[in-house]
């Protein structure tokens, strides 16, 4: 049984007041996410990621198609007990403290007082909320609210967790913590369905990804197989070397960018592998600082995809199909 099954899901919105016109936010999306999988749902802003999440949470009703979570229709209260959801840029009751908010949600889930007292402090520790847990949420920063949001999403030990842009608003340390948390959830057997527009997040976490552009699915598969993740070259940063020495290897270097004195960033082609060049540079006294694959940014990839799908621009208004 799939953890999440999305079958031909379509959502149209109406735009305009006097003469409303349908705007298709999601176009016949079909996906199947297996249990225990960390699935990345990628796309630029306005691609339909949040719409899909909302349809799965039944915050929106589909124009057509259907979706199931753990074999039950979305919106089923029994299923909601087994899932967690972090909305994009979450907002909570300002008058409550982090502890009270989680206590409130835990009561809704059905946890008794003793269970709440046991779980909530541990959960707040896990997401890195310290003594500020007794402060009203109106005093929390965006990053802190995001942590509280993650805590409430995993409050009930969910079997499936939906995270809409979970890294949004977090500093680098926070991002790393969230990544670790997602991996921990995966290790517990939890299915994680998360949306992002940052490739590196998906690459570090996901076994499979789907890429959405203007409401349409344009790519899906194992992370390694999706072209957006394939390298187009290398970036090597070297020090203790002169520009004259580098000139001697010009045929193997596409671009040289000075960073500081005797420190350069070199852009290299994908082939040949930079091993040989690295050996030669080290032999000439250079020291390697870093070597990273060069990828298209997700944005570049999206732009290319949009060019390939000229009829699927974001602001296209597609007429509703007859029922």
């Amino acid at each position, binding site marked *: 049984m799939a953890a999440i099954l999305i079958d031909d899901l379509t959502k149209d919105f109406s735009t305009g007041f006097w003469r409303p016109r349908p705007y298709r936010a999601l176009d016949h999306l079909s996906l199947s996410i297996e249990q225990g999988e960390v699935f990345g749902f990628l796309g630029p802003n306005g691609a339909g990621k949040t719409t899909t999440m909302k349809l799965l949470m039944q915050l*929106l009703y589909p124009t057509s198609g259907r979706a199931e979570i753990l074999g039950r229709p979305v919106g089923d209260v029994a299923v909601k007990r087994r899932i967690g*959801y972090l*909305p994009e840029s979450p907002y909570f009751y300002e008058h409550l403290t982090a502890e009270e908010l989680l206590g409130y949600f835990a009561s809704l889930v059905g946890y008794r007082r003793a269970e709440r007292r046991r779980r909530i402090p541990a959960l707040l520790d896990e997401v890195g909320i310290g003594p500020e847990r007794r402060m009203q949420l109106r005093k929390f920063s965006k990053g802190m609210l995001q942590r509280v949001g993650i805590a409430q999403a995993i409050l009930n030990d969910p079997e499936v967790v939906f995270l809409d842009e979970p890294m949004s608003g977090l500093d680098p340390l926070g991002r790393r913590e969230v990544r670790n948390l997602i991996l921990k959830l995966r290790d517990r057997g939890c299915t994680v369905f998360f949306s992002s527009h940052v490739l590196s997040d998906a690459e570090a976490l996901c076994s499979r990804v789907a890429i959405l552009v203007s409401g349409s699915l344009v790519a899906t598969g194992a992370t390694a197989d999706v072209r957006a993740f394939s390298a187009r070259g290398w970036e090597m940063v070297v020090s203790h070397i002169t520009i004259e020495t580098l000139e001697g290897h010009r045929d193997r270097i596409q671009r040289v960018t000075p960073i500081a004195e005797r420190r350069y960033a070199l852009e290299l082609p994908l082939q040949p592998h930079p091993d040989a060049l690295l050996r030669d540079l080290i032999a000439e006294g250079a020291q390697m600082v870093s070597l990273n694959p060069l990828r298209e940014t997700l944005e570049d990839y999206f732009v290319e995809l949009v060019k390939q799908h000229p009829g699927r621009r974001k602001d296209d208004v597609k007429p509703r199909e007859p029922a």
Partner: protein
Amino acid sequence: MRVVLCIALNVFKESVRDKVLYNLVIFAVFLMAVSYLLGQLTAGQDIKIIKDLGLASISIFGLFIAVFIGIGLVSKEVERRSIYTLLSKPIRRQEFIIGKYLGLVLTLLVNITVMTAAYYTVLACMAWAAGGWFLAGWEAPAVDPALLKAVAMIFLQLMMVTALALLFSTFTSPILATVLTFGLYIVGQFNGDLRHFETVVPSRPVAAFARALYYLLPNFAPLDIKASVVHALPVRAGFLLLNTAYALIYISALLGAATVIFVRRDFK
């Protein structure tokens, strides 16, 4: 029921922590103190003025709480997007509506209780200060338990207003919902005129339409028994029961409509 109670208690907690709510109570108490001072100017009749002003204050302050907090019950959740997280929890949308409503009713109950206590305190002070032959001239005792009947009817009115505010807030903007709720509150004071509209306009279709409106729109006038209790006129138990039943049925219909709209609503 547990879920409804949790949501209701959260609404109550939010209201209690909302400083505006405290201000309203303070203002109500303040107004009653002013009414006491005004009463000093009208020897012998002051108790009636204070009784009238006190009940009117409870009604008006309760009305502001019911409308302004009632409108925010749903619209604030939607505007601030806190509803996204809430509805992802194992709750039904119906439970959300009922819980929100009961939370504000609880808030109103506590407020009205505080205001009534302050009101009776002022009246007791009046009776104590007047003493002597003034007391014998009063139609009813100062600390008259019959006033509680009027307070109970005010509470029922406010419950209806809260249900109206909640209904409008499920499908319109807060401003429009406020206008509609206040508008219907005012219309509801004069609704009785629509019942026999044929005496005003001699047209059967217009009269039929007016009568339909009479049944459709809220009727607050029968729930207003302030004048009767202040002047020590009898208010029959049957009358109170009938109007209580009317209010409860009307509230149920409003909440039913609010639920139907809310259950089908998309949260974009």
